[in-house]
């Protein structure tokens, strides 16, 4: 386990969750008179004080536009903004910071690939292959692109275990496949797909591979070079950073060859009535004024995570996950979407046979426990697993075993009322 010194002071060799918790102001609040148990981390994570402070500093000291204005404030903003890009590159081990495109969120990142690479490269008769376990963000854009282009939309099945049906995937991957889009980690079942194997398969048939890493980058070391995908998307606000920032990583050569997605200021070389020449990547994809303070805040979030160490975080979460699954599965009438497997991320989307997820979430909230209920933007997966909707508990680096006990106790109150 890596050493932990997020506040920069002192070094401890064990994972000190109590100390980590002190860094998150939201963990000091109460809900319904009880301390908050925040188990909705798949949707958005809490923010450490250092991230909040980074934003405050931008707005107090240099709330200026970037792009190298000559005045001091703009220069300070530009330095901090580009430093954050460098941190992001380092965080996911990009070969070059120019491979990091700042977007609004994962959805925006994937729409960039779809609206730029996809519009330029997909035609009638081509196929796009995705899976049933995708978040709508990695499903609907490809489906709509296929509709527009007369291409075929292929969807690889999931098995009842929640795992990708590799045979179906192999069957649906062919020489006609031009793009394959797969989540690294499912936001419902927690299934971890073998991206590097799937990407290698895609490359063998000449397809481009998109890995949706929205649920992996926050929770485990992700090395985009080792992963083998051509594009990687994620959302910074899912790894302690402010809302308003997504990342798109793409191989330099592919980004360079792609047309811009949004056009306007800052992404151009020159503009005349007759002709516009575009800037190089990543700038050609960052039209207009970016979410400057949020991006700088993301830099602080990455610093925070790296001070603890992504491997340490992942190890800790695996232990939480094991405990949560064990405890939940002891409860009568409870089943979890997707089978348990060792190393399963700390996500449990469960079903109680006596109550509806909306009512469950409502009563858990009465006990101060925050979970999501619904389809979690993954309707095809619910459909495939025969679930109308689920209640999802998803944990992060600041959660504890005690909080899992609180969840279990809260489910027992639901049982009392409904069963």
């Amino acid at each position, binding site marked *: 386990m890596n050493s932990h010194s997020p506040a920069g002071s002192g070094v401890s060799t064990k994972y000190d969750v109590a100390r980590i918790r002190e860094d998150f102001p939201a963990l000091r609040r109460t809900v319904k008179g009880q301390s908050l148990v925040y188990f909705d981390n798949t949707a958005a994570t809490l923010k450490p004080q250092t991230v909040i402070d980074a934003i405050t500093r931008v707005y107090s000291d240099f709330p200026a536009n970037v792009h190298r204005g000559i005045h001091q404030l703009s220069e300070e903003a530009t330095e901090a903004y580009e430093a954050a890009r460098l941190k992001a590159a380092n965080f996911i081990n990009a070969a070059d910071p120019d491979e990091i495109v700042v977007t609004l969120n994962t959805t925006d990142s994937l729409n960039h690939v779809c609206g730029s690479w996809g519009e330029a490269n997909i035609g009638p008769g081509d196929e796009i292959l995705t899976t049933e376990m995708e978040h709508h963000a990695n499903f609907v854009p490809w489906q709509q692109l296929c509709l527009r282009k007369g291409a075929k939309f292929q969807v690889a099945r999931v098995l009842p275990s929640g795992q990708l049906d590799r045979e179906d995937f192999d069957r649906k991957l062919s020489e006609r496949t031009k793009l394959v889009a797969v989540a690294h980690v499912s936001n419902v079942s927690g299934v971890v797909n073998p991206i590097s194997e799937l990407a290698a398969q895609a490359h063998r048939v000449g397809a481009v591979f998109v890995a949706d890493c929205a649920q992996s980058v926050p929770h485990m070391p992700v090395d985009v070079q080792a992963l083998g995908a051509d594009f990687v998307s994620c959302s910074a606000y899912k790894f302690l950073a402010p809302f308003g920032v997504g990342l798109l990583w793409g191989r330099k050569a592919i980004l360079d060859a792609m047309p811009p997605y949004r056009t306007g200021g800052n992404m151009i070389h020159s503009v005349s009535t007759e002709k516009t020449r575009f800037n190089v990547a990543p700038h050609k994809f960052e039209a207009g004024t970016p979410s400057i303070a949020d991006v700088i805040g993301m830099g602080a979030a990455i610093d925070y995570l790296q001070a603890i160490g992504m491997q340490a975080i992942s190890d800790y979460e695996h232990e939480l996950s094991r405990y949560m699954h064990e405890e939940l599965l002891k409860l009568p009438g409870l089943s979890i979407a997707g089978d348990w497997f060792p190393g399963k991320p700390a996500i449990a989307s469960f079903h109680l046979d006596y109550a509806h997820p*909306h009512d469950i979430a*409502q*009563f858990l909230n009465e006990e101060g426990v925050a979970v999501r*209920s*619904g*389809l979690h933007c993954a309707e095809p997966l619910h459909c495939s697993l025969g679930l109308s*909707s689920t209640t999802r508990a998803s944990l992060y680096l600041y959660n504890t075993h005690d909080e899992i006990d609180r969840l279990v106790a809260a489910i027992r109150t639901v049982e009392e*009322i*409904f069963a």
Partner: protein
Amino acid sequence: MDLKTLYREVILDHYKTPRNTTPLSAPSCEADCRNPSCGDKVRVQLKLDDGLVSEVAIIGNGCAISQASASMMTEAVKGRRVAEIEAVMEEFRRMVMGAGSEADREVLGDLMILEGIARLHARVKCAMCGWSALDAALNENGSDVNLDEDTELPASSQH
């Protein structure tokens, strides 16, 4: 009334044994309402006789609030005139949106017990599902309603 009491004393009864669930053989009008983000679904069928709802049926599934509210709705409308029902519908909407006044609630009768829903903002749509289907059945027969999590409720209830 706290949430547990509300569920225990009202909601669960209607949820577990919803009223008026036998489909009508020849409804005068009918409509669906669905809230796709959570799977709430209610179909309302009405038999109208000379401006009066003589029979009503719901077919649905979903969360306890959506199903209980629909079940209670059937009891509130059965045997009543459409004009009266419109008033009840409007007042029910106001109540669960946290608008309207105590004084005007009289018309709601037993439904007043659902007042607490107004505090559960995320559940207002659940409570409205059956009512939106009723509204659609009465006013735009056949045009079904979709309530997504972010969809505003019908115009009259804009806050």
